[in-house]
């Protein structure tokens, strides 16, 4: 933890005449939300440790427009998209990695039609590729023998059919991966998507995150692994609601990998 993070920006890279291997799209949650910032830093620690040449947009990054689009504001979404695309294209970005499935989905699927064509991957896929080509080795470390369940983010799983990368990573940790009764294509939403994160829920008899946390707790895990900063918030709140914060932790897959390596 002591070593400071090396986080070059695209502008700095360009000034040095360099092009990074991958652009790390941090996203709004990853930049501003206290809990999500820890995920961002964990991911950067892995990037630094494995000497991945990456850069962020820093203050030139702006919301992808996902929550505006899902709320119905197509104008605002396309304004954001076109501004971001101008910046990304100016830096000739080719490959983008992000720890937010909402940014991931929007950049990957909705930007190409508007002129933004990049190879976009989720950070769990990126970490898996680092392991696959030998740049990162992972051992269980502090998680060895623990029971971990993975909550599929809707915009990673159903929306883009990425189910295995996060699970493969978790299994590298010598842990017991347990599935919830509904997972993968049948996974239940955490309740944050579709701009719900930014509004109160409509009247009902339960909060969606509480229901999903019940699913997770039924699997009796030590840790609930997430791959999305919003799912992370919703499930953490769900755990508090169930008064289980002493027993069950919610952690991003990147944090699991980083902590296992004592990064």
């Amino acid at each position, binding site marked *: 933890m002591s070593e400071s*993070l090396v*986080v070059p920006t695209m502008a700095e890279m360009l000034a040095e005449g360099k092009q990074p291997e991958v652009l790390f799209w*941090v996203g*709004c949650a*990853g*930049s*501003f*939300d206290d809990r999500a*910032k820890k995920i*961002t830093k964990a991911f950067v620690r892995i990037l630094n440790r494995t000497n991945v040449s990456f850069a*962020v947009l*820093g*203050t030139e*990054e*702006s*919301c992808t*427009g996902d*929550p*505006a*689009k*899902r*709320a*119905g*504001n*197509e*104008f*605002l979404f*396309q*304004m*954001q998209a076109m501004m971001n695309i101008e910046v990304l294209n100016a830096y000739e970005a080719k490959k983008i990695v992000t720890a937010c499935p909402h940014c991931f*989905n929007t950049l990957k*699927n*909705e930007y190409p039609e*508007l002129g933004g064509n990049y190879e976009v991957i989720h950070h769990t896929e990126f970490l898996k590729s680092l392991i696959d080509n030998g740049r990162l080795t992972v051992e269980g470390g502090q998680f060895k023998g623990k029971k971990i369940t993975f909550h599929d983010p*809707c*915009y990673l799983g*159903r*929306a*883009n059919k990425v189910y295995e990368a996060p699970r493969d990573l978790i299994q590298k940790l010598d842990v017991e991966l347990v599935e919830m009764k509904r997972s993968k*294509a*049948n996974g*239940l*939403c955490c309740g*944050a*998507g*579709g*701009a719900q*994160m*930014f*509004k109160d*829920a*409509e*009247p*009902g*008899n*339960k909060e*969606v995150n*509480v*229901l*999903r946390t019940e699913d997770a707790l039924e699997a009796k895990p030590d840790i609930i692994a997430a791959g999305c900063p919003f799912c992370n918030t919703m499930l953490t709140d769900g755990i508090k609601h169930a008064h289980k914060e002493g027993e069950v932790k919610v952690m991003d897959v990147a944090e699991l990998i980083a902590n296992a390596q004592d990064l």
Partner: protein
Amino acid sequence: MSYLDNILFAILLIVGFGFFAASVKKIIRNINLGVDVDRKDNPKARWKNMALIALGQSKMVRRPVAGILHIFVYVGFIIINIELLEIIIDGLFGTHRVFAPYLGVVYDVLIASFEILAILVIVSVTVFWLRRNFIRLKRFIHSDLTGFPKSDANYILYFETVLMILFLLMNASDLHLQNVPGGYSHFHKAGSYPISQFIAPIFNGTSNEVVGLLFEVFWWLHIVGILVFMNYLYFSKHLHILLAFPNTYFANLKPEGQFDNLASVTNEVKLMMDPNADPFAAAPSADENAAPAKFGASDVQDLNWVQLLNAYTCTECGRCTSSCPANQTGKKLSPRKIMMDTRDRLTEVGKNIDANKGVFVPDNKSLLNDYITPEELWACTSCNACVEECPVNISPLSIIMDMRRYLVMEQSAAPMSLNAMMTNIENNGAPWQYSQQDRLNWKNEN
């Protein structure tokens, strides 16, 4: 005398198929009220979807009990329709089991398999009825299904049971007469009857004439029943037996997370961001008569034709609603209701057009508010569970999103908190009130 039968049968067929054709025409016209969307790309993937999902029922078996029973009924429906061909030829030309001499053993196998399927259909339909009315599965006693939709589901089950019973009784009476020593009338030996051989003994002790008459009654009721059932489809959720095929063919092939980018918006945004654009220039005058673009959907005519096809295809099984996180937590949103409302409104608009000589006369109603409330629309998490669940690839989510677009872009009617989120994105590039200049501060925080 026998010619009278044939003529009567021909008239019956013409009337039955004539009414049905008129219904199909109306459905096609109504679907075409939707705006255009290109779903003709990648025919290979589309045929594959249709073969796997509609023909192969691949998504039905995600819920195995209903899935397997449904396959019995579905295969029964398809296979027994082969027999329908023989019935029609027999009816038109006064023949009896016309295929039998040509097919030989194959005919025995066919008839035997029809009989076995018929009994499987009866068993499956009975279980379906029990699930709806006795076990009362949650998705079948849901508030979406009151009034006609509830009765409709049961009518279909009764219809199918009666048709199958008539089919078996017809075979049983036929078999009884085939076995009359020395033969009786035109009932020559044909077919193999693994099920109705157990029913045939009920005719023992009845005179051949009466059994022959009963055969005629069963035969006629069966074919009339089929024609009536076919014409009932137009009014029923049962339309899915036909529309599941085009619906899976034209379904979205893109990733579920990819929502369409409104082209009308793209043009405006591009103009807005073009430094060379003249803000005082007159609007392009290319097609002055074109209606001004409306953003999003408030009524069925604003939806695209695939969404309207979806509405006619929906068979109200409720798998979408039972998997919806909003519905599971007691919110008003039910994806199934979105589809049912869309169809009901489309039917209403269609009737309006029929009553007004082919022109829609505004009726001061719309899909939004009169059928679907904003409260339902705002409860959606856009999680795609409904889309994933639908056994025939219907997308309730796309309709919800189009209606949200109308609420936000035409009516500025988003919930307050969402307006605040959008203002933040506009002003500082994040949904929260943080300055864009602070985006990289995390780097130096501990």
